[in-house]
């Protein structure tokens, strides 16, 4: 155990009875969620299950209606704005779309947090930036602009920016969405080696089963704004819960195709779903 870990609490995330609304619609409904130090936690669930919403609230982008959110031991809705800003420097986020700053090169994107929050000199910043790009296998690509990158490269550049401050906690939204299987699997390996070598705790939101089974220590399945199940990969695979089985088998709604109904869907002018 490294001494840095002494400074990180045992539970890096504690969400208690979280209720959130979007307008008048309830999105999260009494959510409970905990992540332990050094763990890779995968959050799964169908669209509308609230998995992205949970992420946004943990990151403090919105204020909850009810409930408590503790991140790295701090209640993010109790601490002052400036304490929260400081806390955020210990947290890395890799967005689904990458969210790289389009006006900056890849290198400038990765260096950005260092320039904003540290007093390191340019030579040191350059070395750290290039080192992080090496870690994500983008060595030598620092001069490219985000618009010149492929999907997989964007994810990796975003990951390099997310880890440049050596965060204790890393969030990864849909790491493999829209990537071909080979590239997706490379990203999974990267996630594993970051945890193993840097001791980061991670929360990964994904809908890719294969990736989830590969990287997760535990999986949390969300359904209708609630934590349906949190369990190890093996337990999730064995689960008899119908919703979880649906999710695992990805039962398509086209399984039972009614040819006549289908033809009507294609051809009728005023067709509406009954």
């Amino acid at each position: 155990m490294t001494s840095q870990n002494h400074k990180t609490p045992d539970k890096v995330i504690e969400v208690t009875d979280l209720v959130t609304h979007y307008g008048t619609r309830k999105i999260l409904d009494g959510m409970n969620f905990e992540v332990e130090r050094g763990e890779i936690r995968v959050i799964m669930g169908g669209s509308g299950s609230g998995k992205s919403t949970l992420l946004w609230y943990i990151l403090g982008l919105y204020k909850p209606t009810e409930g408590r959110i503790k991140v790295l031991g701090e209640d993010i809705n109790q601490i002052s704005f400036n304490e929260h800003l400081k806390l955020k420097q210990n947290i890395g986020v890799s967005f689904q779309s990458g969210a790289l700053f389009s006006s900056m090169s890849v290198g400038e994107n990765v260096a950005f947090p260092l320039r904003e929050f540290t007093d390191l000199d340019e030579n040191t910043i350059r070395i750290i930036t290039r080192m992080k790009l090496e870690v994500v296998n983008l060595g030598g690509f620092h001069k490219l602009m985000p618009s010149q990158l492929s999907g997989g490269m964007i994810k990796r550049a975003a990951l390099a920016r997310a880890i440049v401050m050596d965060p204790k906690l890393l969030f990864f939204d849909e790491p493999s969405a829209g990537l071909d299987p080979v590239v997706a699997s490379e990203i999974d390996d990267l996630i594993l080696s970051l945890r193993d070598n840097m001791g980061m705790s991670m929360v990964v939101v994904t809908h890719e089963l294969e990736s989830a089974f590969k990287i997760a220590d535990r999986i949390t399945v969300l359904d209708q704004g609630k934590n349906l199940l949190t369990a190890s990969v093996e337990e999730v695979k064995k689960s008899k819960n119908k919703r979880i089985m649906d999710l695992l088998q990805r039962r398509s709604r086209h399984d039972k195709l009614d040819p006549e109904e289908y033809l009507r869907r294609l051809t009728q002018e005023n067709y509406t779903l009954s």
Partner: protein
Amino acid sequence: MTKLTQKVENLGQMTVQALERLGFAMRLFWDSFYWLIAGRKYKQRLRFSQVVKYIKSEGVDALPIVLMLALVVGMMLAIQLIYALEAFGAESQVLLAIAKSVTREFSPLITGIIVAGRSGAAIAARIGSQTVSQEIDALNVMGVVPVRYLVLPPLLALIISMPLLIIAADIVAIFGGALFSVTKLDMSISAYMVDSFNVLVVGDIMQGLIKSVVFGIIIVLVGATTGFYVTNGAEGVGKATTTAVVVSISFIVFADMIASFFLTK
């Protein structure tokens, strides 16, 4: 009947939305100055180089078009005023009329409109596309206050460069007036210029400068607010850009009238 209630409802909704945005813009203004002063303490430093960059792109780069239009407006004023004043045999007053109207009214207004079209649109487009691509969210989760990074620098840049643009526009517009008037008045251009500056009092120049700072603030706040409220992807960004220009020009004209009323005694 339902159509009417629908319309009333829409009107109500639009009013609420407008008020919400007005509040948001006020908040941006307040936050900008809060971070200007408190920024150092919380590692949210304002970057001087960023302000310089914006002074270049929003002030210096606007100079050619501002000067060109100022020249044309000065000439146009001379043509109209000489025509009107001739009726009273008071052509000699054209010098005074141009000097006063240019410094107090025309050069701030023209500059305001041009800068609204350039910078207001640019700010709305920049912040709008960053909102759409989650770059604002990325700043937020990193712990960079977006206002400090995206609004404060252009705000300071315009507060600094608008008065400078106005002074340049004043001189060129009076020169434009001189070009047309000197033959009628039978005097040299240099004598005309000197006389113009002699008839001006500090209050005339100040009125223009105060207005220009207010216009600069309006342009940045309107641009940023419409940018932050963008939804609907690229199409939304396009709409926001148009909205930012139309709204900021309208506000500028209203603010101009109010300022003229209170500053002219």
